[in-house]
């Protein structure tokens, strides 16, 4: 055990040296956590510095205000997409809208837009914005390459695909909007964008955002995993008898609106928020006894003829389970 502890110390000393250019500390610290913490704090500081740099650069360019060059360029491409195929889109900044109703092809339209105080730079930048569309065995892959310069670049997409296309959509800060689809799988991932799904049937929904809200209306899914760190979540749709629905947010509120005559097992929890349900829950006994005087932070029970499984979990937000209007 002693030998292991010493090897741990050696290893972590190396990490400290590697991550800190000015490290003078060769102290053999036997506490794993402290050194990991230190490295992490170092990384966080570097990250905050980078973030501050980006923000001040943006403010500088905003301050120069008038005299901004603003160039747009349209893009359009149609490519074959087999029924049941997949559209895989990676975009950075700029909203993405995907709708069904297309024939056997993906019709991709986009608007590239560059803003810069220096017109010449904007013109160069817009030529460097690339939209790469590739067809692979009946599936379509779209990649957005944004140049690294000081110009502000957005690429906004409008895409039409066959109803039963599977979707993989990833963006950094663009909103993702999907409607009228009946594909098998839909996976959407964004950092600060909002995700909106409307009028959609799916076997598997897998949605993640960090700061964005998620609004899902008229959804019929077998499995849904909806997750945001600070965004609000709203899910309105029909529950399937063997469905599994999991909504998780840290800071946001959750609003769950099951339609029809739903039957489900519910587990709803919050740390510091409130819980409310319109539905009568048949609660397992031990939990009913435990409620006492403490405000309810956990709801577990069955609605109707159980079948579906619903988990709604938030840290500081509220959870409401309501009937449709």
């Amino acid at each position, binding site marked *: 055990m002693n030998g292991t502890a010493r090897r741990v110390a050696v290893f972590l000393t190396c990490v400290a040296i590697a991550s800190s250019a000015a490290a003078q500390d060769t102290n053999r610290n036997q506490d794993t956590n402290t050194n990991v913490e230190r490295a992490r704090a170092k990384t966080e500081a570097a990250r905050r510095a980078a973030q501050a740099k980006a923000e001040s650069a943006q403010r500088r360019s905003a301050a120069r205000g008038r005299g901004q060059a603003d160039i747009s360029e349209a893009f359009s491409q149609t490519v074959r997409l087999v029924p049941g195929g997949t559209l895989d889109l990676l975009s950075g900044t700029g909203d993405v809208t995907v709708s069904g109703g297309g024939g056997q092809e993906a019709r991709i339209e986009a608007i590239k837009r560059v803003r810069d105080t220096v017109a010449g730079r904007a013109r160069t930048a817009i030529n460097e914005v690339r939209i790469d569309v590739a067809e692979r065995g009946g599936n379509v892959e779209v990649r957005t390459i944004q140049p690294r310069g000081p110009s502000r670049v957005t690429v906004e997409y409008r895409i039409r695909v066959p109803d039963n296309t599977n979707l993989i959509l990833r963006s950094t800060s663009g909103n993702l909007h999907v409607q009228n689809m009946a594909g098998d799988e839909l996976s959407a991932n964004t950092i600060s964008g909002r995700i909106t799904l409307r009028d959609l049937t799916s*076997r*598997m929904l897998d949605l993640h955002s960090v700061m964005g809200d998620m609004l899902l209306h008229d959804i019929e899914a077998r499995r849904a995993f909806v997750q945001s760190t600070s965004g609000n979540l709203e899910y309105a749709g029909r529950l399937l*008898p*063997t469905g*599994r629905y*999991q909504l998780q947010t840290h800071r946001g509120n959750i609003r769950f609106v099951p339609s029809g005559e739903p039957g489900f097992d519910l587990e709803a929890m919050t740390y510091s928020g409130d819980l409310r349900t319109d539905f009568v829950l048949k609660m397992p006994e031990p939990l009913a006894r435990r409620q006492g005087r403490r405000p309810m932070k956990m709801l577990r029970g069955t609605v109707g003829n*159980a079948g579906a499984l619903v988990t709604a979990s938030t840290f500081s937000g509220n959870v409401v389970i309501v009937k449709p209007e």
Partner: protein
Amino acid sequence: MRGAATPSSPAADLELAQRCGRGDPDAFEQLYRAHAGRLYTLIVRMVASAETAEDLLQEVFLTAYRKVGNFRGDSSLGTWLYRMAVNHCLDYLRGRQSKMARTTDSIDEDGMVEPAAVAPLVASAISRLDLERAIERLPDGCRTAFVLHDVEGFQHHEIATMLGISEGTSKSQVHKARMKLRAFLKGAMSAPPRALSAQAGRV
């Protein structure tokens, strides 16, 4: 065998393996593009979870990346990867068994379902989705045998070797799986028993 990969010559396999072994990222991507689909298909059905399958697929490819330098061409690259995938699945399933008691084993042990009044199943009428869902509901042991035999097309003696069981056990596990699937598919009208929806576990 049904699940055979696109045929590739031994020379091509060896060359790709060596390039991967040298850390060539394009070679590694080529390896992935050529084999991931088939492995993923196998893994999803073996472990009955798409999320776990992604993790296991990742693990298989990263293990392959580490070990591909030792590939000597005794089998094809596809078979080499396939065996690795089967082993990873089995390890995962074995590891899981010790933590979670599967409640499904107590249900419907012999599955002699309904009388002759019920019409026979016609293969073309079995919905793919219903079957996939039914396969997910099978207990680990017989699901493994069913996937390898009926879906992937291995013979019982091959399955026996892969799983470390006797040929007789392989046959009875496949039979048990088919009988349970039959019960699930024919019982699809009624709501699933309580214990099964609890078994849905974490997504």
